[in-house]
């Protein structure tokens, strides 16, 4: 059977937490409903509120009660519709870690508009645009596949343009994006690790290296890229995308 948590958590505000869970458990023919209700309350860390009325709970707590309700009949599959919407940051972190914990024993299907959330908690991401699946993979693979490159950010004491010409001399670098104040990003083909050479040539060219780290494309960027492929007209109007475009149209080196 399936456990389901709709976007607006369906609760009876005039019932106590325990009464509500026992009622839901009875409706689903769960054996020893009271014990089971207490167990799921423990799973969502709410056992101290079992005699409180649902109407008096905060939004984050209600969300957790909703989750508890979806877990009552030990479903193999759990469907959550935007479980963190409308919560404050600490509650979001709470609910996310709870989802990760619960996901270890069962399949969780989660719909969300917050892409960093999907990146954080999901093993597999499906991006849907206008009712069609436009991408399906693990977040890591999705990132790698879509960038097709590895990106590294550098910060040095000195001039970005000079730095750019130094890095351009390194074989394997496919794209260089200079930023002001000695900051720069470059890309290499996936699997071709030239970081050691680049670092050496920066030092030997006399720069003081301040920062050197790999950058991952966020799911947001991937999402936009995918949608752009799907629908160009929609994205041209979007400022976030055009700034992204500008970055991609950096100096290209063969």
């Amino acid at each position: 059977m399936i456990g389901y948590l709709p976007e607006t958590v369906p609760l009876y505000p005039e019932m106590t937490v325990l009464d509500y869970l026992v009622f839901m458990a009875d409706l689903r023919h769960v054996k020893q409903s009271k014990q089971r209700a207490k167990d799921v309350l423990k799973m969502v860390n709410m056992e101290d509120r079992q005699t409180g009325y649902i109407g008096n709970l905060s939004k984050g707590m209600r969300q957790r009660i909703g989750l508890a309700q979806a877990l009552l009949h030990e479903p193999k599959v759990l469907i959550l519709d935007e479980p963190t919407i409308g919560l404050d940051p600490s509650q979001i972190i709470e609910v996310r870690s709870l989802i990760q914990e619960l996901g270890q024993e069962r399949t969780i299907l989660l719909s969300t508009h917050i892409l960093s959330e999907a990146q954080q908690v999901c093993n597999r991401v499906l991006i849907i645009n206008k009712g069609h699946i436009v991408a399906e993979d693990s977040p890591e693979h999705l990132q790698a596949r879509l960038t097709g490159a590895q990106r590294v950010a550098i910060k040095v004491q000195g001039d970005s343009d000079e730095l750019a010409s130094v890095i351009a001399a390194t074989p394997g670098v496919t794209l260089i994006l200079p930023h002001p104040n000695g900051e720069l990003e470059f890309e290499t083909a996936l699997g071709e690790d030239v970081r050691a050479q680049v670092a050496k040539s920066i030092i030997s060219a006399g720069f003081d290296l301040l920062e050197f780290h790999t950058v991952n494309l966020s799911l947001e960027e991937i999402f936009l890229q995918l949608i752009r492929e799907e629908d160009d007209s929609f994205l041209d109007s979007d400022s976030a995308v055009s700034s992204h475009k500008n970055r991609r149209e950096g100096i290209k080196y063969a």
Partner: protein
Amino acid sequence: MRNIWTIARRELKLYFISPIAYIVILVTLFILGLIFYVNILAAYMQQYTPPTIQVVIGPLVTIFLFSVPALTMRTIAEETRSGTLELVMTSPVRDWELIIGKWLGAMIFYLVILATTWVFAIELNLIITPGIDQGLLISNYIGLILLTGFFISIGVFASSLFSNQIAAFFTGLGILLSFWLIGLPSQAMGTFGIDFLSYLDVGNHFYNSFYLGVIDLKDVVYYLTGIALFLFLGKAMIEIRRWR
């Protein structure tokens, strides 16, 4: 069957954890008490024939006519609005179990109200000699139970139509009053359809039989059919919601 009882029990509990139950019982008893007192006093001073339990039952029916739609309006409308109906419908509960559960919950609550009105019967029994007519008392209460069941099924049906409680209340009240008054045009017209319209009249089946101490199978059948009809309509409304 288990689902019906689960739902009915929750409904019943809801009346008693909120002030609803106590207010309704208090107000009902207070109004009945006033009427009861006036009747006793009038009979005592004017040396009438001693009053029967009818002095309580008549007003009680009128009170129920208004209190039933008010108490049943939230049963399904509230759940539609808050989205909990979705939750109940995704659990292994059949539509008819939901409707009957809702009806039964309200029915048990009304049985509690009816039980509290026995104080008047007991009191009357103490006042008048040689005590009250117990056959009349029992037939009146049997009639009241059937009548209330019918009212509640209309209220639950009206609640299944809307997600707005006020709309459900007035629809319920409208249907109830229609059944209450449908016999009147037939009296005035005196033409075709008299028998049919006066047969539909919910009051005729009470005041011309149970109220007078007569238990007639045709009246019992009338109420049971009415209950079944409106519960069926309510179930149909829930089913329609599933298709949408």
